[in-house]
């Protein structure tokens, strides 16, 4: 079969909502796009462990400590599912990790902001996970089978995380005046970066069009962002807090919340590496990776020894 024919069959499958599986033929560009996207997603889970991990040892109650530990652990698990999904596309975890460590691969820029107070742990859960879920819910229906199934597993846990984040803020919002201030301050700092998580405006996003045709992506950045604003603008009322946007207002005509202009300079600046924690996050990850090298080498050496012994026993 010619490439043209293969491509035709491939696109027909996609159009008929049949999942593409690892052994199926797929265009090189589809594979590349997926590897890039899934590994970015995986890296975001792994780097995402750091800002929240920052508060594990200082969680304000044993219950909160347990919840936070379990949450960060879940993120490591999500990372695992996703690295496994990239492996089905022929890229080893090692290679994928190396690309992260070297700075070649990206991860979600949101994790380049610091978690300064316990309120941030609430805000990250509510806003950052909230934004991530909308994306991931969409990705449950993505055209590549293993990625779709990874997202289904992730979504189950993630919505739980968002509720936990919201609950942290709810308790703060009903607390002492200091706690209320901590709550509002966290929302103020995390609101705009959360909106940026959906990526550039439609039309300015480089990969979007082809991804939509391939049904890797099924909603545009702006659609998802609007959905997020609508959701959060309602939920924030329960907290009795405000979002730091004077232009935020319900629009009766569109049934959407209108909102102010995002500071895209800040967005691109953080993407370029100038966020408050870009260097810190990558340094931390690199250090963990380097400090772990001897452990990985030992595990490999031991496995080889075991295998050799087993073989010897079988020979004898």
């Amino acid at each position, binding site marked *: 079969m010619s490439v043209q024919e293969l491509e035709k069959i491939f696109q027909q499958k996609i159009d008929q909502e049949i999942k593409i599986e690892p052994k199926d033929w797929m265009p090189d560009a589809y594979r590349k796009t997926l590897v890039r996207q899934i590994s970015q997603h995986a890296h975001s889970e792994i780097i995402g462990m750091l800002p929240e991990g920052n508060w594990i040892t200082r*969680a304000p109650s044993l219950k909160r400590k*347990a919840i936070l530990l379990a949450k960060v652990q879940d993120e490591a*698990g999500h990372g695992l599912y996703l690295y496994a999904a990239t492996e089905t596309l022929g890229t080893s975890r090692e290679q994928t990790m190396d690309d992260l460590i070297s700075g070649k691969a990206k991860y979600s820029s949101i994790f380049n902001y610091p978690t300064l107070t316990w309120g941030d742990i609430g805000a990250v859960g509510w806003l950052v996970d909230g934004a991530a879920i909308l994306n991931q819910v969409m990705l449950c229906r993505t055209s590549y089978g293993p990625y779709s199934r990874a997202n289904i597993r992730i979504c189950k846990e993630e919505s739980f995380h968002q509720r936990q984040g919201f609950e942290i803020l709810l308790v703060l919002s009903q607390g002492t005046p200091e706690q209320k201030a901590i709550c509002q301050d966290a929302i103020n700092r995390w609101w705009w970066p959360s909106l940026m998580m959906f990526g550039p405006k439609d039309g300015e996003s480089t990969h979007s069009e082809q991804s939509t045709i391939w049904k890797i992506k099924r909603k545009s950045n702006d659609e998802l962002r609007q959905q997020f604003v609508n959701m959060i603008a309602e939920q924030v009322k329960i907290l009795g807090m405000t979002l730091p946007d004077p232009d935020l207002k319900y629009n009766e005509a569109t049934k959407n919340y209108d909102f102010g202009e995002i500071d895209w300079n800040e967005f691109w600046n953080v993407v370029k590496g100038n966020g408050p924690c870009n260097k810190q996050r990558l340094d931390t990850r690199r250090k*963990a990776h380097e400090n772990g090298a001897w452990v990985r080498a*030992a595990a490999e050496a031991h496995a080889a020894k075991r295998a050799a012994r087993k073989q010897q026993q079988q020979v004898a």
Partner: protein
Amino acid sequence: MQQTLINYSLYLADNSLILAQRNAEWCGHGPILEQDIALTNISLDLLGQARSFYQYAAQLINTDNPSATPASEDSLAYLRDVYNFRNCLITELPNGDWGQTILRQFFFSSWQFLLYQQMKLSSDQTLAAIAEKSLKEVTYHLRWSSEWVIRLGDGTEESHNKMTKALEELWSFTGEIFEPAPFEKAAVEAGFGIDPVSLKDAWMQKVTEILQEATLTVPAPRWMQTGGKEGKHSEHLGFVLAEMQFLQRAYPNATW
């Protein structure tokens, strides 16, 4: 007055909490993603055990002093200073490298496994229930840490040397576990506690077995550091608590 039972429960709780806290420092920094998850899991299990013991202690304290400000798992974990903590010194030591963390976990889990096996038969039903529930967890901790001690001891030359160094760092902190503190003796006398001395031989046997398989040498008998059970800690615990307790201390009486 159930002071003995309170003290004994706090001892068990503090051990689990402080080791949970130390292990939690690894979360996000482990050498292999799967093992990062595994150690976090152990941390979570230990934290869960600590909460059960603290809750029980709090309940006993509140029954004893119905008119005082009620104690809670959080007041016991967050509002006591170093000299009130009873955990063994080994739990509060800095993590060192991954090998040292693993080896400590192995020493600790070997002890907890034996302890809970006895404690699930305790005449105190709450202690027995916590032990029974925890035993399943600890069985896994012991298997996981044993396997890793073997893997790292009998891995590369570098890993072998690191494990030898870790043994050197930790060995003199293993004796304290089996030195009965006054509250342990009282707990044994009262019928619900486990005599740590009675666990020592089995512990040593297990440790010897695993270290041998790991091609590591069991250290010769030496002077053992003690003090933790009676609130005489190392200089490390104060820093652990300053970090852990910050929010509860900085915002007194707040709800979280």
